[in-house]
């Protein structure tokens, strides 16, 4: 590791952050257009973040509450940096030499756990309810995801993401989604849960428990969370792109692929209504689980 890596990492974060924000805006815009609305401006997420940072007063419920957004954003950035973003690029390989796929999978929880703790310290019952729902849902979609990951790791005989991407080079017929469809389907369904969009958005459930865990967060704290909301989904998209869709050799390819992958939960989300938690837990542990098991058996 050299110090220039840090510079490269900052560059990656910068690009992905912007990409994430724009993606967020564009997707919401698309959602609005589906509903025959004009929708927000594509740069609205930027304004929101600036607005939140420009808030003058902040309240805090305690230490955990204060550093929860830090945990969250660290989780998001870490997830991004532990993955090779652009295949074959020294600059955007980031810190993927520190750990493999297992690290990436487990590092997701770093932010989730930290956020949950902070939200809980706010003392707001809705936060706790949101966390309860969120964790319940995470546990359930993690099972098909794990099965899919094992299947993929076995398929390529490695846990090294770079090598997994390398093995998928040379045309889309080499992509995992073609070569190992069951694992890919199981993981893509789990991906729906991971993105937290409808029908699996009961965690935030704006009409029900205001917005779940972040209910009490405001101003700068919320701003940090918003940054994470830009980076974290983008990082997840990149992970799935790397695992299932052959990775990307340049930014254009990355943007195209991740955008299209994102359309999958967006599409499902605009079509299906919300599941209750027990329903989604049950659902994840039936259909996707069976697909995952088939994927394992077929190895």
């Amino acid at each position, binding site marked *: 590791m050299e110090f220039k890596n840090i510079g490269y990492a900052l560059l990656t974060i910068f690009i992905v952050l912007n990409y994430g924000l724009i993606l967020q805006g564009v997707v919401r815009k698309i959602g609005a257009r589906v509903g025959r609305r004009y929708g927000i401006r594509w740069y609205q997420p930027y304004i929101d973040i600036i607005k939140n940072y420009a808030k003058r007063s902040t309240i805090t419920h305690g230490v955990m509450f204060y550093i929860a957004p830090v945990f969250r954003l660290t989780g998001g950035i870490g997830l991004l940096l532990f993955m090779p973003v652009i295949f074959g690029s020294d600059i955007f390989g980031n810190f993927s030499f520190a*750990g493999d796929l297992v690290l990436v999978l487990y590092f997701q*929880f*770093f932010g989730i*756990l930290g956020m949950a703790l902070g939200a809980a310290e706010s*003392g707001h019952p809705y936060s*706790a309810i949101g966390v309860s729902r969120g964790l319940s849902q995470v546990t359930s979609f993690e099972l098909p995801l794990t099965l899919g990951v094992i299947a993929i790791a076995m398929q390529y005989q490695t846990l090294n993401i770079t090598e997994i991407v390398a093995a998928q080079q040379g045309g889309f017929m080499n992509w995992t989604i073609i070569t190992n469809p069951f694992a890919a389907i199981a993981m893509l369904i789990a991906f729906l849960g991971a993105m937290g969009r409808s029908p699996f958005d009961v965690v935030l459930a704006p009409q029900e428990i205001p917005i779940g865990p972040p209910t009490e967060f405001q101003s700068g704290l919320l701003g940090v969370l918003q940054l994470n909301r830009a980076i974290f989904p983008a990082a997840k998209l990149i992970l799935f792109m790397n695992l299932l869709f052959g990775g990307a050799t340049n930014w254009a390819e990355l943007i195209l692929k991740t955008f299209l992958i994102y359309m999958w939960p967006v599409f499902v989300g605009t079509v299906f209504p919300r599941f209750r938690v027990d329903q989604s837990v*049950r659902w994840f542990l039936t259909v996707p689980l069976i697909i995952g098991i088939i994927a394992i058996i077929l190895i």
Partner: protein
Amino acid sequence: MVGPIYIIAVALGTAFSLGFFKKANVKFSFAFMLLAMTFMTFISGQWLYAFLTQQQETIQIFTAGFKPPFSISLQMGFYEAVFLSIINIVGLLSAIYMYDKLKEKGVQMMMVFVLLFMGLNVVVMTRDIFNLFVFLEIASIATAGLIILDKSANAISAGFKYIIATAIISGILLIGIIAVYYYAESLYINDIINSNLSFIKGGAVAVFLILIAIVLELKPFPANGWALDVYEAAHPGIGTIVSAASASAVIFVLTKILPIVGESGYYIIGIIGIITFLGSNLLGLKQNTTNRLLGYSSIGQIGLLLTIIGLTPYLGDKTLFIAFGVLISHALAKAGLFWLSGIINSKNIKGWAAIRRNPHLLVLMGTFIFALVGFPPFPSFFAKWELIMQLANNDKIIWLALILIGSFIEGVYLFRWFGYAIKGENQDLPEFKIQWNKIIPVIIFALGLYAIGYYYSTLTGSAASLNYIPLLFILFLYAIDFLPVYIKNTISIAGIGYYLYTIYPGLEEFNLIFALIFLAGGILTLLAGYTYKGKRQGFYPLVMMMFAGLLGLIEANTTLEFFFAWEIMTIGSYFLIIRGKKSMTHALSYMLFSVGGAYLILAGFGLAHIGQSSYSLDILANVQGYAPIIFTLLAVGFMTKTASIGLHIWLPGAHAEAESDVSPMVSAILLKAGVFGLIVLMLRMGAQSFGSFDIYYALAWIGAITAIMGNMMAAFQEDAKRLLAYSSVGFLGYALFGLALMSHLGWLAAVSLSVIHFMFKTLLFLAIGGVVMRVKTKEMYKMGGLIKKMPFTFISVLMGIIVISGVPPLTGFGGKWILYNAVLDKGWFLPAGAIFFAGIIAFLYCFRLIHTIFLGQLKDEHREVKEAPFWMLLPQYIILGVIMIFSAFPNSLLKPIGEVIMPYFSDGALEWQGQLAVSNFGYWNGELIMYIVGGIFVIVFAWLWFMNRNAQKVKQFNIGYSAERPSLPETTHFAYNFFAPYKKALGFLVSPIISDFWEAVSEGIHAIADKIRRIYDGNAQTYVLHIIAFIVIFYLIAFGGSYGI
């Protein structure tokens, strides 16, 4: 040397001369009687000494100067001397014990008493069967006479039943004797033996009648209702005599008679014995009446002895060792318990809670109970060990199984009783006062048990190396129990530390790792002991006993040492667990699972010993046959300690109810004993399978399901310590899974997870223990918001749960990463999926733990709660430091473990490049991750701090609450049934199927016992009918179709 004939002379003389004393001189006459008893004891003891030290020859005494058959002959040999000593010592101490009663009843009773023992003495010594009959009758008439000591109607009617039954039995005996005489034309036993009666048509029947009569004197199941009533109703002193002295004498008679019967008699004795053993213990289950329970236990023990005698052909020259071990433990322990029951004076076993008022009495009772069940260091332990080894060696698997089942059932009711004594909650406890004459005999017998136990251990060839130093240390701690806590704590820590220091150079491989977990862990948890004030009576000896056991496991080279240590550990932990609040039922279930598990281990070792001369643990490596069965038995035995699914139900309660610093000991340290056992087993036995079915695959699934179930149940607990306890269940599931993989990485994962589990579970249990100590409740939803009051505890819990959940950068992730790689190496994907599912479920309970206790709303009552005591925090922060080091430099933990595993599994080892671990599949650099995460964290935090440095601190009700505001913290803290939707979706998985199963088993057995015991309807005639039916049935069995037994 005083001739044995003087025993009779003295007894008779005393009995007659007592008649001259007047009632006024009752004290003097008692002294006179005592003198006589002492003299009898002296004579027998003197002979015993002579036999033991100077090679004394067996002597024959012929009365009236004739040789047999024309005279009555007595024999004094080594065995006679032993039995006479036991009987006379029991007699002497009984006399002392019954001083009050005898004094009250006067000289007549003393006469009867002396005559009873004269009868028993002669019964042992005589070689003439008619003489035998006469003195048996004298003994039973005397017994019946003594029963009247108690004036209650029950005692009298019991005595009547007794006399009717014995009269019938003696009638049978008489017929047998005369018939034998008819065929053998001699009453001298040696002559009868030579005449081979069993091969004569009628002779066999005659012999059978004698045999069955003697057996009936031993109260075989089910023809024993009369004896039970006596046990229940008569004075406890009588119970002692009947159970300890008379039974010993009759057992001896049986061994005298058996040569007449010949080889085939053993078979019948064995069957009767095992039926008695099982039946009587089964019925004992439903007993609540102390003395009747003891009666059932007595009969059960005699049944075991009969079984052992019946198995003589297979046990060979070990019979004596085994039988005597069982007999002496039974005699001393049962006598002790009967005497204790006379002191406590509680008819119902629940009333025994009264015994707690005097802890020393409790120690005595514990001694007797553990001796009866066959725990070390008592003779019965070695006897049972030898018994199982020999049975296994002779392929008597069914007998082995039945004996273990019987012993287990006996353990159930004895420990239930003991539990009531230690922990039972009972309002109106009987008052009792301790008289010296009553307590001294009890103490003598308790000490005798220890002494004989030690002597016995030296007789066992392989046990010579048993390590008694820790036990002496325990004794020392017991002696200084009156000192305040901090002194004893320091001494204990110093003791463990010194021992660790001395054995450290000799340790290697797994022994080193586990020694560190056990002993260093012990020191850490003991540090928390400084928190306690006062004396903490009885705590330190018990703790040290557990650690002595754990230590013994590590030092064990032979199966016996291993088992010895295992049992010592069980005793210590049992007492530690039962010290907790409301722990009675949990401790019982712990004990039962432990005893059951121990018996499986015993059976496994026994089978492994087939065809082996050595007792070394290495015999496991080349067992002769039964390999998969041995493996399964041992594995299941060890899994009772690791609390794998199905065998886990003892754990949550036991761990949750224990004291704050005991929970980490039993949870973080004790469970590792099971892991250690599994490692010892797997290293030596290697891969095993039933046909094509791989046992390890099954183990992996068991591990995976244990992990899921443990974690899920943890997520649904309201009780913080119970949550942690279930979490232990789950985590040991991972360890089991890792071990089952049988690969380098699997073992690396399992061992490192064990180490990590030890660390974080100690951390968490201490932290939660500190919280519980402060807030005085374990229900999590009653806490909340404690972060502001106990920030240091919060930090350790936070780190603990990050480690549990395996989130990078802390060290828990290392275990998960290795497990992933191990699984991919091995190719067991479905259980792997389950294991990782379990890992994710861990998040649920982790979050719940920290949220409901430390976050959310602080409760009214807790507004002035203080931080946990320093001595609770100190060990936590030591562990925390170690965790941080292991997290940042994972190879400091994993590399040594890997090197230990290397000789056994070398394939697929990790390759270390600095802190970078490389496996076949992936790589991981703990140090780098730590830096990266730390770096990002600091930068983001700095940014946030810069933007929001002057944030307004608000209080707990300042929340956006739909324009309202909360009014009570209780209603605002979302904590109860935290994962309600999850429970709705998956709760069916954690429905208590397993506890229901065990409960149903237990209920069923109890119901059967209840049905069967209805045969004892309390009517003397029914009992006579039982006796006759018993004779007829065994006649049919013995002569089924053909003559000749």
